[in-house]
Every structure is written in C-alpha cells, then in structure tokens.
C-alpha cells in the first residue's frame, strides 16, 4: 500500500530561532521596502520632517516679510513659486508651513490617541457603568460629521490655531476609544491577564502593563492612517478662517488668501494646495502600506 499523504518528519530547531515577533517585524520591513508607493510616502514624510527642521536654512526668504513693491510676482527665477498679495515669497511660506502642519499632525493625533487609548482601555477592562458613560459620550461625538463638529467647536472657542487643534483632536477621540476598548475586552479574558490578576496585580498595573502594550500596535496603525486626514481637516478650518491666523504660513490659509487673486495670480492658491495634496497622499499611501504590513485584518 502506498501512502497518499507524505508526512514531513518532525524536526527540532537546533538553535532557538529569533522570536516570532521579531521575525514578523523584519518581514514587515522587507515588504514595506518592496512596495514603491509606501516607499514614496515614507520619503515624502521624511522630507517633510527634514524641511520642518531646516526651514530657516533652506527657505530663500523670510516667510512673513512683506515687500509691497513685489506684490503678486509670477513664478520665475527670482521667486520660484511667485509672491502673494503682500509680496511674500510663496516658496518660503510653504517651506515654513511644514512646521505648522507637522505640529498640527503630531499634537492632534497625540492628544486624540492618548486620550482615546486610555479611556478605551479602561472602558473595556472595567466595563460596567464607567464603560456605559464613556461609550455614550463617544456616540454623541460620532453623531456629528467630524468636520462640522470641529468647525462648531473651533468657532465657539474662537478662531485660533490651538483651538482648532483641540477641536480636531476631540472629533478623533472616539475612533481610538472604540478600538482600544474592543482590544481590551478581548485581552481581559486572556490567560496572562488572569495570571496577573491571580498574583494580586492591581487594576492599574494590569491596564498599564498587560492591556495597553498589547493593543498599542493597532492604535499606532490607526494613528498613522489619521495623519493625512488631520492635516486636511486643519487646512479646511484654516481655509474657513477658523484655524491658523495671518500671518502664519499655514497652507489652507494661503489657499484662502489666493482665492481673491485667482484671476490674475492663480499661483498664490495653486502651490500651497499642491503641497497639501502631496503630503496627504504621502501620508495616506504610507499609512495603507504600514497597515497592510502590520495588520492585514484592518484592511478595508
């Protein structure tokens, strides 16, 4: 009788292989490296960071220096992207604007993710009335379209970049809370949490040492996917007049300024807008790539 199924011999690894987690990371990095779109995204984002740091060194002019004799100059050899209605160099303003956008992205996501992560982890771990209250509050925030709620909050707090960042952070909290909660709900039933509890670990310790570190990866993925959206929302608020205030070189505000000169000087609105598109595309494709590598389950 012939054997239809060949059973592979059981082998033991002669030496302990690197841990599974480490291998997954290395494999992930390799896949990230092979995807040209993700690489493009990463490159643009790195460029954004470098520009933000080096803005004073590479910008050809002061971003707020007005030279009324050089109003609305078209793009050319002297001003690569032209000048705006106050004679300011648009390229320099865009380069300095990287600082504003980067700052918005990091602060907003920092606030939203850390608050949502903490609230959600506690909610899922404790359950009961605390969970009930937190989730009802999140439902209320989710009952609004995000941009509309951010607009309302920012307009009541007053037109100012800090208020706009706070407003955008608030509308992003529920996403992180829900994710962290669902992770915590699953983790609290796991054996290692049971083991920790049986050794007398406090709730605080369990949440900080066992629940949160294990759901950190999904939080980071969502945070990286949010970067583009946050920048876009901040630019929209800036455009309406609810975000950064003049003379801050914020890209959305610059497009709004350019709107008045669309007929004679279309470059004033064109270049800041193109920059927003470039950065948001980069953030989106990089986020997509990162998600595919780190957690294929989240693929939408």
């Amino acid at each position, binding site marked *: 009788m012939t054997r239809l199924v060949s059973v592979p011999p059981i082998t033991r690894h002669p030496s302990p292989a690197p841990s599974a987690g480490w291998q997954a990371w290395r494999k992930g990095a390799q896949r990230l490296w092979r995807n040209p779109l993700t690489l493009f995204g990463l490159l643009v984002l790195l460029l954004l960071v470098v520009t933000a740091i080096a803005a004073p060194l590479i910008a050809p002019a002061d971003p707020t220096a007005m030279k009324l004799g050089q109003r609305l100059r078209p793009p050319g050899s002297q001003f690569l992207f032209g000048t705006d209605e106050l004679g300011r160099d648009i390229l320099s303003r865009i380069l300095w604007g990287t600082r504003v956008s980067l700052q918005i992205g990091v602060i907003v996501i920092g606030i939203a993710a850390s608050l949502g992560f903490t609230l959600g982890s506690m909610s899922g771990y404790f359950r009961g009335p605390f969970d009930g209250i937190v989730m009802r509050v999140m439902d209320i925030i989710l009952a609004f379209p995000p941009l*509309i709620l951010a607009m309302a909050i920012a307009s009541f707090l007053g037109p100012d970049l800090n208020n706009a960042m706070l407003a955008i952070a608030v509308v992003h909290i529920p996403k992180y809370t829900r994710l962290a909660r669902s992770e915590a709900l699953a983790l609290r039933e796991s054996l290692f949490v049971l083991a920790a509890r049986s050794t007398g670990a406090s709730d605080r310790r369990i949440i900080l040492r066992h629940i949160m570190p294990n759901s950190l990866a999904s939080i980071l993925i969502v945070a990286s996917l949010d970067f583009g959206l946050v920048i876009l929302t901040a630019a929209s608020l800036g455009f*309406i007049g*609810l975000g950064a205030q003049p003379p801050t070189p914020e890209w959305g505000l610059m497009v709004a300024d350019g709107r008045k000169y669309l007929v004679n000087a279309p470059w004033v609105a064109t270049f800041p807008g193109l920059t927003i598109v470039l950065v948001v595309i980069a953030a989106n494709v990089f986020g997509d790539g990162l998600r595919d590598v780190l957690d294929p389950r989240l693929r939408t």
Partner: protein
Amino acid sequence: MSRTAYILYRLVSLIPTLLGVIVLIFILSRSIRGDPARMMAGDAADKQVLETIRREFKLDEPLPVQFWAYFTNLLQGNLGVSYQTKRPVLTSLMERFPATLELTLTSLAFALLGAVPLGILSAVKRNRPIDHIVRVLSVGGISMPVFWSGLMLIWLMYLKLGWLPGGSRIETMTQPPPPVTGLYTVDSLLAGNWPLFTESVSHLVMPAFILGYGYMALLARIVRSSMLEVLGQDYIRTARSKGLSEATTILRHGLRNALIPVTTLAGLAFAGLLGGAVLTETIFSWPGIGKYVVDAILFLDYPVVMGFTLLIAIVYMLVNLLVDLLYSWMNPQIE
C-alpha cells in the same frame, strides 16, 4: 417584530443620542469667552440693550435654567434669531436647505454611479494597469482638499476656458423657477422651462463633481476591497464551476454580496459629503446652508452656528439609520 415596529423602535432609540447632541451644542455655546450679550448686541450697545438681551436669553440665570430655556425653545421649533440678519435661524436654514439638498444628492448620485463600476473593475482586474489607474485616482480623490480642487477647476473651466459658470445656482439676473421642490433643476423641468433647466444644470456640474469626487474615491476603495474579499469566496468558485458566465458570476454572486458591507461604510462616509458641502458651497458661492454657516462664523453669529450644527447632526443620524435599515433589508442573514 414587524418592520414598522422595528423602524419606530430604532427612531425612538435615537432620542438619547439626540439629547446628548443638544446638551453638547449647548455646552459649546456657553464656552464662548467674553460676554454673550455683548456679542449679540455689538460693541456699540448701551447698558439697557444688554440688560434686555440678558433677560430675554436668561443669561443671568444658572446654567440649568438657561439650558431649559434653550431646550423648550427648540421643542417649539425656535432655533433662535440670527444676530446678523435678525431673522429666525430655522426660517433661513429651511430657505437654504433645498440648495444644499440639490448639491449633495447630485454629488451622491455621481459618486455612486462612478464608484461601483470603478471598484468592480479595479477588483476584477487586480494589479493590472486599470486597477493602478483607479487606485491612483481614488488616493488622489481622498487626499485633495475640495476647497483647493474647486478653485483650480473654477480657474480652468470658468476663467480660462469659459465653458462653465463659476458659481451660484443660476445667473443673478435670471428669475428662479416657481418653487415646488426647491431644486432648481427639477422645478424648471416641472415648469417646462428648458433654457432654465440647462442653465441650472450647467451651474450644478462643477460643484457636484468636486464634492462627489472625494466621496466617489472613498467609495471606490471600499467597493474594491469588499469585492476582492467576496471574489475569493468558495461560492464564487462554485458559480464559475457551474459554468456561469463571468458577468453573471461577478454581478449576481459577487456584487450583491460585496455591496452589503459597503452600505454601512458608505453611511459613515456620508459625513465627508456633508462636511465637504460646507467648503464646496463656500467656493462656488452656492446659496445653501453650508455657505450660510461659513458667513455666520465670520460674524460670530452663534445662533446660526448652533442651529446649523444641530440640523446637520440630525440629518447625519437619520442617514445612518436609513443605511442600517437598508443593511438589514439587503442582508438575509440578519433577522
């Protein structure tokens, strides 16, 4: 539970969230720095005027009393009076709502008609050139700020080429059609006024395209990934092995199942359409509620901002309820 009872149950279960929404809007409105009475009356107002306003809006009373006054007014359909125009906010919102409805519905139709075929094509031709083109178009669509792409299109189509009008619903000198639905395209057809119909359509094309494109891009991505998941299922292989044509397999067996998760996500993504409408209306001087609120924000006209925010939240909640009902109706696995 019968269908009607279920729908009623779902409507009633919206009430707690709606109450929360009202409370949140109230709290926000009281977080204004400075004296609300002075903001309403303007800097030039004398003491007596300020006193009257304080009494009228119960601004001297404790917060719960203020809230109760706000809430009972809401129940009577009183959203307050605009500081700027001195007209009731509800009246102004209702006047402008049809314009927004016309714009969003057209964008929605455009987005759905574009997203479904593109998403299917992209999934079926996975990793082929057409898939790459669709994916680039959709990443571009979700990454482009509408306030910028709108301006660029106005510059090209209106200022440079002169093919399309640059804004508003009809020309300033044109008489609007007799109001029936409030949608100029429909009303002009009902009145049999063909030139007016083409005029309103030509005004609608650009804003609807700009607003719909972002939503289409998002939907196309969702359709594509949902379709990819479905096409890998066993029942698709079964359908193929039965000898069904590729079109039948994809449309009858694939699409019908792929669209089920798409409906839920489409409902959530509708938020983007509502938010985008505010920016699109501003760019195209479209006289809807979005432009109304942006103008109000610049004048710190808070009753308008409050009324608008509440209205949009209600619309969004109802849309998501509708989508949920549609979902359970489409999915036979849900009783």
